[in-house]
């Protein structure tokens, strides 16, 4: 069974209200014009609940085995219904999707950007997604950049680099970007090192996840600059810089490492990112609580 058919079946099973169920089923098979498609897409707001699906572990397993990239747990019912509308509308073109996005609210745009990667001819929609990355609305940016394989599959190197730099700049969790290591490149490493210099000049920190993208491209000059900062950094920064040094073939890096008597605990880049992200989140929640109390 194709992914779109499977999701359609899940959606229809999930809908309690018979009228809504037959409305959706009928729309999936009958839409013939853009205007009908736009209105139906918008009507999801009114008609479909926003809950996560009540799926048995067996059903989740079925979908994971067949479509390992598709994490159904990350989707709500209204998002999956919009996914289905996009998959089933046979006249969907770059022009009609561009119009749909231009009249979409935040929640709709999130559904669209999460779905595009599963469309037939997904690559045709690349300019739309590249433009989507220009958003200032964090939730929309996240829908494209995080847990979504589209960018890694279809963005050019410059487009990819812009997205990663913006994600670093917006302090998004880099480890949640799909295929982040496969698309590392020298140009990006240098852009990010420049970014680090700017931040240091302003006495501000950079995310330890930055070093993941620079690892493999460090030069002797950059290494000397970085190593000056290692003592100033706190634990997550040091862990990340040490991991970069460990992974480096640079003689200067290896010599420096053997001159130090440091025991380095093995840790993955994903772990470094996830630790940093969750500690930051916890810190912010405490700050929010404190500000409410005062």
């Amino acid at each position, binding site marked *: 069974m194709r992914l779109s058919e499977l999701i359609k079946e899940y959606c229809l099973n999930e809908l309690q209200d018979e009228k809504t169920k037959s409305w959706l089923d009928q729309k999936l098979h009958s839409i013939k014009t853009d205007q009908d498609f*736009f*209105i139906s897409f*918008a*009507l999801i*707001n*009114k008609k479909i609940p926003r809950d996560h699906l009540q799926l048995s572990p067996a059903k989740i397993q079925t979908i994971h085995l067949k479509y390992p990239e598709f994490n159904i747990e990350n989707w709500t019912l209204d998002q999956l219904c919009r996914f289905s509308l996009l998959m089933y509308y046979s006249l969907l073109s770059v022009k009609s999707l561009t119009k749909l996005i*231009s*009249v*979409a*609210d*935040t*929640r*709709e*745009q999130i559904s669209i950007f999460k779905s595009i990667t599963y469309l037939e001819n997904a690559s045709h929609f690349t300019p739309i997604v590249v433009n989507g990355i220009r958003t*200032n*609305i*964090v939730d929309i940016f996240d829908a494209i950049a995080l847990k979504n394989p589209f960018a890694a599959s279809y963005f050019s190197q410059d487009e990819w680099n812009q997205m990663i730099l*913006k994600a670093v*700049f*917006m*302090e998004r969790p880099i480890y949640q970007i799909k295929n982040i290591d496969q698309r590392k490149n020298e140009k990006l490493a240098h852009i990010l090192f420049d970014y680090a210099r700017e931040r240091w000049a302003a006495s*501000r920190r950079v995310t330890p996840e930055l070093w993941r993208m620079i690892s493999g491209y460090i030069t002797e000059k950059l290494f000397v600059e970085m190593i000056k900062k290692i003592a100033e950094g706190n634990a997550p920064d040091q862990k990340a810089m040490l991991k970069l040094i460990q992974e480096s073939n640079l003689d200067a890096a290896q010599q420096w490492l053997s001159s130090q008597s440091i025991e380095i605990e093995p840790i993955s880049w994903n772990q470094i990112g996830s630790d940093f992200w969750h500690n*930051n989140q916890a810190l*912010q929640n405490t*700050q*929010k609580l404190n*500000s*409410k109390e*005062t």
Partner: protein
Amino acid sequence: MKFIDPHIHMTSRTTNDYEAMSKAGIVAIIEPAFWLGQPRTEVGSFKDYFSSIVGWEAFRASQFGIKHYCTIGLNSKEANNESLAEEVMELLPLFALKDNVVAIGEIGYDDQTAAEDKYFRAQIELAKELELPILVHTPHRDKKKGTLRSMDVLEEHGIDPSTVIIDHNNEETVESVLERGYWTAFTIYPNTKMGSERMVAVVEKYGSNKIFIDSSADWGVSDPLSVPKTAKLMLDRGITSEIVQAVCYQNALEAYAQSGNMKERDWSHGVRFDQSVLYGGNSVLRGQNPKKSTNSDIVDN
């Protein structure tokens, strides 16, 4: 005390306003679609404006802990450009169904022309079809007649007055609007329309049933804090806090909750906002430290 400002045009306001509003206890706002101070000449300008009030502006407000809603409509002034109006009418259903839209509005009369009448009626029918409340803008000139005419037309189309908000009332219109069962809103402007002092007198005379107030702050001389300031004045004059609460919060909520899109739980546990993770990022805060709101003090009138 918590406040709702059910009529304010935030696209024209600065982040200083958002900060002050949040500090004064405003937790939710409604941004009616309106004109921009000069007429638009292309349908695309309407599309991008509607798009910004269903998306970007709501995000901007959330960064200050304020829940943002809007109304969608073709305003009466711009209804007079008929060829453009036709194109805008086609756009309306696409935006009126969005998540934060709580009414069709602000619609009604400006000069009370035939074109204004045509699009007022067409939008009343749209609201009926989409089961949305209606926000009516009453005219600045020939106000009393325009207000009565608006209500006549609504009733001609079979609209239930309890689903309609008639805005910008004054001492001359309040009685007939209340009598006919409409939500009766007052705009507190520093110089024109209603002043805070006059509003206190209205509430003393008519009570709080179906009455609420707003700032209608926009690109002109206006005050985004006029709801909390008027509330303070009412309390100082000995009006009970129950009545102040009704006029400055509860009634607006009840009127617009009829859309199904406005719920107290949208803000009662804090509006979800990410400004502290954005402080270095591409947010409206641009490197400033996030502001933490307190509700203790209201700026003096």
